[in-house]
């Protein structure tokens, strides 16, 4: 009896968690469909171009179906959905592909390399028309990618390279250039009379993205005789660790007057850390610490509006997604495209922070309402 009762209680608890989760998410973000766990798979029951009425509203309408009207299946294997960047990228690609009439399936590995490789095999069981990867590790995924390509699947990489396999096309921003953009901002705004004492808040330095953002920043700063990076704190992309790192760094060196963050993802911890340390002052006020960051997510843009962040090197998932979808369509139509698309870096400043070109100004989670981005790097191909 006791046992039955406890099983019942456990089931009730589980159900209450799930129903709680479902209710609040459904209320807040009806359009967002984000995989819940690392093995989440989504195959929509039907393509959903119906919400978009005309070709003017939806220039992608009917693009992701073959001559017989069968939808193309795009499979996407990505490393995580913890960050706003990846979530937005996933949501927007899925939305664009479905607006084009195609079917979409995604697998999220949560940085589990073994799982990611298995996911490539799982994906092939669905016989997709194209595979898109945003891997956890450039080299580790390569054998699985090569195998898929040998079996005839076109494979595309977004944001993170696949080293050791020649994917059909690699759509990315140069992470080194993102770091360099922040470095250049510091170089331009400081001088021998006003030297920069810099604290670097790094992402996860075991990952190539963080290493490249570090490299780019150091490339610009190290030759300068009026700027010095006095400390680098590895946060593992955690706001909480960034908060602690700020406290420790200012204990060591109270003269820090510049912060460089590898991502807006840690921004809330950085700003609150500065507040607790009595170092948070908006631009124009005495004691303002110049802050340059990367990504341009909603936290970052808000920090800039509040006057605390001076510049952000934008890393736009929307631009990545729009170009990627078009390149994949070109492959399916048998049309030519480049093997590499390196996207331009935009520096967000208070002058352009409100522009609707900023991906984080689009309504969060409502990917189906986001416009089909008109860009000239690789326009929508004609069949």
């Amino acid at each position: 009896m006791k046992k039955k009762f406890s099983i019942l209680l456990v089931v009730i608890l589980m159900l209450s968690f799930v129903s709680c989760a479902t209710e609040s998410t459904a209320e807040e973000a009806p359009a967002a469909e984000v995989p819940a766990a690392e093995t989440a798979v989504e195959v929509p029951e039907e393509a959903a171009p119906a919400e978009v009425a005309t070709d003017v509203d939806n220039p992608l309408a009917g693009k992701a179906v073959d001559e017989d009207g069968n939808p193309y299946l795009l499979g996407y294997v990505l490393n995580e959905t913890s960050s706003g960047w990846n979530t937005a990228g996933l949501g927007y690609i899925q939305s664009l592909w479905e607006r084009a009439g195609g079917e979409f399936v995604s697998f999220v590995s949560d940085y589990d390399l073994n799982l990611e490789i298995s996911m490539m095999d799982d994906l092939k069981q669905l016989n997709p028309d194209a595979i898109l990867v945003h891997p956890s590790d450039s080299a580790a995924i390569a054998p699985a990618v090569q195998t898929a390509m040998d079996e005839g699947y076109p494979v595309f990489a977004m944001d993170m390279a696949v080293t050791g396999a020649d994917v059909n096309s690699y759509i990315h921003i140069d992470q080194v250039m993102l770091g360099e953009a922040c470095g250049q901002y510091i170089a331009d705004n400081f001088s021998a009379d006003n030297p920069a004492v810099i604290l670097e808040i790094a992402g996860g330095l075991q990952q190539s993205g963080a290493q490249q953002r570090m490299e780019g920043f150091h490339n610009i700063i190290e030759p300068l005789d009026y700027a010095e990076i006095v400390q680098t704190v590895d946060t593992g992309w955690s706001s909480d660790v960034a908060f602690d790192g700020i406290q420790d760094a200012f204990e060591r060196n109270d003269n820090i007057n510049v912060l460089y963050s590898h991502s807006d993802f840690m921004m809330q911890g950085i700003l609150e850390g500065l507040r607790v340390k009595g170092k948070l002052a908006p631009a124009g006020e005495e004691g303002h610490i110049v802050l340059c960051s990367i990504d341009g997510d909603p936290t970052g843009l808000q920090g800039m509006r509040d006057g605390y962040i001076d510049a952000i090197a934008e890393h736009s998932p929307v631009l990545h997604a729009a170009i990627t979808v078009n390149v994949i369509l070109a492959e399916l139509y048998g049309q030519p495209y480049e093997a590499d698309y390196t996207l331009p870096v935009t520096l967000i400043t208070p002058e352009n922070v409100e522009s609707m070109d900023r991906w984080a100004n689009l309504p969060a989670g409502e990917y189906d309402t986001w416009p089909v981005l008109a860009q000239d790097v690789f326009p929508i191909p004609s069949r």
Partner: protein
Amino acid sequence: MRFRDSKLNSFLKNSSKNGVFVIFMVIVVVLAILTEGKSIKPSNIVNIMMQTTTIGLLAIGMTMVIIDRGIDLSVGGVAALSSAIGAICMTRLGLPWFLCVLIMLVVGILVGLLNGFSISILKMPAFITTMATLKISQGLAHYLLGGTTIFGLPEVHAVFGQGDFLGIPVSVWILAFFTVLGFILLKYSRFGRELYAMGGNPKAAWIAGINVNKNRILIYVISGFMASVAALIITSRIMCAQVTIGDGSELDAIASAVIGGVSMAGGEGGVLGAVAGTFIIVMINNGLNLLAVSPYIQTAIKGTVIFVAIASDVLRRRKELRLKQ
């Protein structure tokens, strides 16, 4: 010079119990020398105390679990889920702040209850059960947050992580409160005596009439509750909720407890040692940052210091045991 009857002598005689405090003092002195006194500046001491709070709270709950020969890997997930639900209540649902805080605490209690029932009544292994609830809670947090950061928490929420009382951070008061409470609970209450008996010899404890199941459920509820208190402080410090909150903190909590003299074999240790163990871990982190040690080598150094601290403690205990025999 003889210390036969002095307090120092007695302290050294009980080195197995006090080993963690000896290691603690050694690290304080070494870091003070290496950082040229920066590590013992009052502002840095407050800083260290503040950084100790979240792992310290988790370590208090973990201590009770480990004394009972168990393990609770779910605490990091509980912290993430509690943060996510709390932040959603405060921002999107617009519920009163106090109610949201209560909800956050209830989340921890519920997950603890799930762990406790599964482990004590269903006899599921603690390691796998809490690993599963870690995944469940992390997954739900992930789902609720949808990869976004929820910020814009009400200003009053900053009180736990950024406020201070009598010049000492509120979070430190909270840690002190639960440390004292945990100490009294383990040392002077019937529950504490029963817990040590359960950890020392579960069968004998059951034969002696101890309600093992009830106590075990309570232990995991306490652990879950402490995790949600930690979540309260984390969200208050960074004024947002992110899915990475609490990530890996279960291992820090276990390390803190073990460094603090809690035996993985059960029946031994206490919350004071566990909190001292947390201080050791935090001081190492803080010291490496004050010394601006390259982040590439910091993790390895931290691991080495923890390894040496535990190894020296284990060797000293073994030596004492041999001497007793």
